[in-house]
């Protein structure tokens, strides 16, 4: 032993233990997750209640429709509204950019729940005034209020995405197009946008996912979306599977979207791969 130590110049590295600590911890954690998943599965099977399912499954489906239409309308309305805001943010005029900045800061700096309350309960409290203007039918409905608040909110985020994407395109592209005599709008559409969309796709996808998740908030202002129906089901049955089912539906939706966005991104950046 002493001889081998004296001439131990380059001993081979010790063989890796079959169970290094990282693997033990990793297996333990995966085991925990598996146990957790199996536990939920077992609970759902154990607590399987045909009456519950028959009663609330159609409601959930209707709720899903409400959620999806809320998000779709808000996303589109927000996209339209984000155009002037992004224009304002990029404009050289102090007043315009200041106004746009304040708009974005307000809607990104306050919770969406507060904004939703502010629209539904806050604006809704001016009933006589709204009735004289003829807007009461709009602010009376919780769904419309939700759409209104969500559109304003997502417009602020989308304006920032749009601005970031457009500003990520080097100025030389604008100048090159201008030197070819292209009109500004034309440059934007034919030169800038195709490059900006690649940058903007992922943030837009994230914003869509955030909106789907945030849309659960409207359940609190009495809209019967997916979450709203889950709340109703729980209030009637005191059965926690009401929330487990709704969690699974949201999770599946978000995962589909996330992978969809990744797929599109791979498709449109195919020419950039080497």
């Amino acid at each position, binding site marked *: 032993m002493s001889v081998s130590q004296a001439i131990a110049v380059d001993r081979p590295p010790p063989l890796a233990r079959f169970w*290094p600590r*990282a*693997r033990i*911890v*990793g*297996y333990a*954690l*995966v085991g*925990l*997750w598996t146990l957790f998943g199996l536990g939920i599965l077992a609970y759902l099977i154990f607590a399987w209640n045909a009456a519950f399912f028959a009663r609330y499954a159609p409601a959930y489906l209707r709720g899903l429709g409400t959620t999806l239409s809320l998000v779709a309308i808000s996303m589109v309305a927000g996209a339209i509204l984000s155009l002037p805001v992004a224009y304002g943010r990029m404009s050289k005029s102090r007043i315009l950019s200041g106004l746009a900045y304040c708009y974005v*800061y*307000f809607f990104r*700096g*306050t*919770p*969406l*729940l*507060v*904004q939703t*309350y*502010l629209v539904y*309960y*806050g*604006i*809704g*409290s*001016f009933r006589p005034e709204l009735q004289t203007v003829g807007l009461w039918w709009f602010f009376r409905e919780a769904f419309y209020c939700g759409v209104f608040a969500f559109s304003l909110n997502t417009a602020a985020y989308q304006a920032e995405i749009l601005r970031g994407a457009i500003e990520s395109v080097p100025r030389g592209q604008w100048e090159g197009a201008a030197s070819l005599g292209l009109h500004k709008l034309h440059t934007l559409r034919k030169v800038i946008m195709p490059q900006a969309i690649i940058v903007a796709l992922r943030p837009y996808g994230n914003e869509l996912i955030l909106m*789907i*998740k*945030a*849309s*659960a*908030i409207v*359940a*609190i202002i009495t809209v019967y979306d997916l*979450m709203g129906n*889950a*709340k109703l089901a*729980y209030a009637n049955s005191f059965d*926690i599977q009401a*929330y*487990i089912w*709704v*969690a699974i539906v*949201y*999770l599946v939706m*978000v*995962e589909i979207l*996330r992978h969809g966005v990744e797929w599109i991104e791979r498709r449109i950046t195919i020419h950039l791969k080497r």
Partner: protein
Amino acid sequence: MPAQSIWTLLSWGPDGWIDDIASGVLVTIALALATLPIGLTIGFFVAFAKQQEEPSLRLAANIYTTVFRGLPELVTLFLFFFGMPLLLQHLIRLFWPEATVDVNGFIAGMIVLSLIFSSYASEVFLSAFRAIHKGQYEGGYAIGLSKWQTMRLVILPQLLRIAFPGLENCWLSLLKDTSLVSVVNLAETLRNASVAARVTKHAFLFYSVAALVFLLLAILSSIATGYILRSLGRREAR
């Protein structure tokens, strides 16, 4: 109901509501500050696990972020708030059949916000990990530092500096997410504003006050993070 002036409503004392809202603001800040260290720690370890070679660790960390980033915050909150007492009760009743469990709104909110915050912070940490060159680890090992020492003395200081702007965003969304805990009746800013709005019928006024509070908190934290960022920058190697 006699018409009260806005200024009476917004005064301090028995007629006004500002004292209630101020106590709510304290709860909001306490909740966010209590969540921050837990969330940062979990987020760091999740990111650490994600960039290990061991596939099982990566899998476990990926499931974590997928679940807590995929679930709406509100659903996570309700699941915990209503599900946890149920689970705990079943577990405790195995030993003490008479026991009942009541979950504190603050604790439930703290746990849920930590889960959400950490899954977002882990992404920030992960990209910061990837921005640190391999040579930094090798240099640490070369001068005889252990793995843990290298992490603490060489990697972590750089990691925090790189991750800071991303973590600032996580903090701002954490501040906003605290408002969700109002739906399980924790007396924080929004909850107290709602009570005031319902009692006084001045909904627009009190929700505006709540919005202003959150704006103010955001402005204050961006001033604070500006300071921290500058001091971090000063400590950068010259």
